[in-house]
């Protein structure tokens, strides 16, 4: 939180808003036809869905199956459509409409903050950026771990670093609301009153308690977070990769659910007349066999262990080193999704750490 504050070169406004009036505000927006998406229960888990009333919202756990990234980087997204009669007509497609994303946990907000970096770096990706600009992100603070798999506290991701418009902390009757942007400020439309120092202190205390609770309940990360890149770098040839790789399906579930996996495939689809078609991108995953297969049949990262290492390295070494932030926000989704329990980044880090110490 403090980072975001300093990045914006000033203090963020903080308000105290009665929960009922905040929810009423959202319900009114829905009635006006605004699209609001929030976590709702789905069987014994949850998912982001378009809601018709704030009553549907599932606050807190369990975790949504798929992260909030789908709203900025959907599973399938058209990039172009074209017509090839006598003339070739190519229309770029950038679909974006205003969307309020409510009840987002910090791990997903941070995930988007990280995606912001990669999609705006050098070649700006309009398809992502336009969707992102149209999004109003209203986060909510987790006061309980949302799943046994999550380890956000260990990844310094229990609060958002950046990337939200409003961030809510449940104070019982009120929300403590932190404003992250002008868009957030105007969404509030003057609701509530400025938070006093006492309010701020109260939140600080809640956060201290929460930290203690998370520290106790979430699985420990044995190496220091900042040591992860070096630890991984030194263990490129660790037997861990082959051992875990042997039990990996190569199913890519870990890639699909992750808030920071952003690889994609691009394919053309053409109508039967062979004249009209689209080009679209689909989520792809570095754990899938075909990910590096080229026309001559060569696969550059053939064995599953090497792919698992690559995935782990992207999160906690390559991108960590490049951007100064781990690209794993500790949401725990991949560890849950992986049916053979091989992918959990925290488990991997701990195992490598233990093994390298005992050597």
């Amino acid at each position, binding site marked *: 939180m403090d980072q975001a504050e300093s990045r914006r070169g000033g203090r963020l406004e903080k308000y105290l808003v009665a929960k009922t009036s905040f929810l009423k505000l959202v319900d009114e927006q829905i009635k006006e036809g605004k699209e609001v998406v929030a976590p709702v229960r789905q069987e014994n888990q949850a998912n982001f869905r378009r809601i018709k009333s704030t009553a549907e919202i599932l606050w807190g756990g369990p975790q949504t199956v798929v992260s909030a990234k789908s709203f900025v980087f959907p599973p399938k997204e058209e990039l172009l459509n074209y017509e090839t009669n006598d003339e070739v007509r190519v229309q770029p497609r950038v679909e974006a409409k205003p969307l309020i994303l409510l009840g987002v946990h910090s791990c997903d907000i941070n995930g988007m903050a990280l995606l912001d970096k990669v999609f705006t770096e050098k070649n700006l990706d309009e398809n992502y950026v336009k969707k992102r600009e149209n999004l109003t992100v209203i986060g909510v603070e987790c006061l309980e771990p949302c799943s046994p798999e999550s380890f956000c506290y260990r990844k310094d991701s229990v609060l958002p670093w950046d990337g939200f418009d409003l961030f809510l902390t449940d104070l019982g009757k009120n929300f403590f609301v932190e404003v992250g942007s002008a868009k957030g400020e105007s969404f509030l439309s003057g609701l509530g009153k400025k938070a006093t120092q006492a309010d701020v202190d109260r939140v600080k205390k809640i956060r201290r308690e929460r930290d203690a609770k998370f520290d106790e309940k979430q699985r420990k990360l044995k190496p220091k977070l900042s040591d992860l890149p070096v630890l991984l770098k030194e263990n490129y040839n660790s037997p861990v990769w082959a051992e875990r790789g042997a039990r990996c399906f190569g199913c890519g579930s870990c890639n*699909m659910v992750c808030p920071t996996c952003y690889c994609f495939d691009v394919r053309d689809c053409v109508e039967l007349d062979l004249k009209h078609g689209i080009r679209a991108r689909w989520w792809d995953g570095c754990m899938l066999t075909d990910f590096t297969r080229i026309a001559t049949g060569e696969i550059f990262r053939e064995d599953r262990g090497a792919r698992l290492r690559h995935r782990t390295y992207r999160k906690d070494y390559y991108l960590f080193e490049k951007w100064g932030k781990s690209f794993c926000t500790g949401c725990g989704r991949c560890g849950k999704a992986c049916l053979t329990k091989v992918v959990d980044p925290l488990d991997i880090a701990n195992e490598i750490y233990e093994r390298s110490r005992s050597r």
Partner: protein
Amino acid sequence: MAKPKVAFFDFTCCEGCQLTVLSLGDKLLDLFESVEVVNFREASSYKGQDYDIAFVEGSIASSKDIERIKEIRKRAKVLVALGACAHTAGVNAIRNFHNQQEIRKMVYGDKAWVFDSILAQPIDAIVRVDYYIPECPIDKEEFLRFVSQLLNNMKPFLPDYPVCVECKMKGNVCNYHKPNPIICLGPVTRGGCGAICPSAGNACEGCRGLIPDANLEAMEWLLNEYGVSAEDKFRFYRMYNGLMGMKK
């Protein structure tokens, strides 16, 4: 460019795949526009013997079938196995695990000898198959994509990733994570169906066949974790992937 001539043939199956073609809706008319259908017994009395592309549905299950499919192979420039029965022998292969004499008796009593029947086999057990459109029944979108890519001189796209990929894209709660877990073959089964069964609350029963590098050891590990008995495993592997169960 002349329209390619297309023929549909069926062997032992439920004909659901041909019916899926007849149920393409408005796209059916587009299909008739872009190809010339010369043989489609299910839908037409015209029996053309001159064709470029043969879509073959069903399993080979009698000695007559063997002759017929060889004849079709000879005439067709491109032979496509349509649906699970043609691709993996589909549910028909279940009977291969029964005593053949006994099951004939069970169904036809003392007249069992009258009927010519052999083990159910996929088309490629007899002749070379150029392309496969898997699934029971085939997926409309995939069929249309296949035809347009073939017309466009492309190698048709058939995903090599497993069902889990699309299952996750749909945001489903994994079958293994439900309060009453459902044993699901998604992690080793070829995707492309849009995870239609898990999305409708059921197990993936493996009707699209295994992915090329399916990790069956991992599957064993997983099913053992869930305490699935060997008998249950085999039964399940053998819904559509008779051969898979035989490997062990």
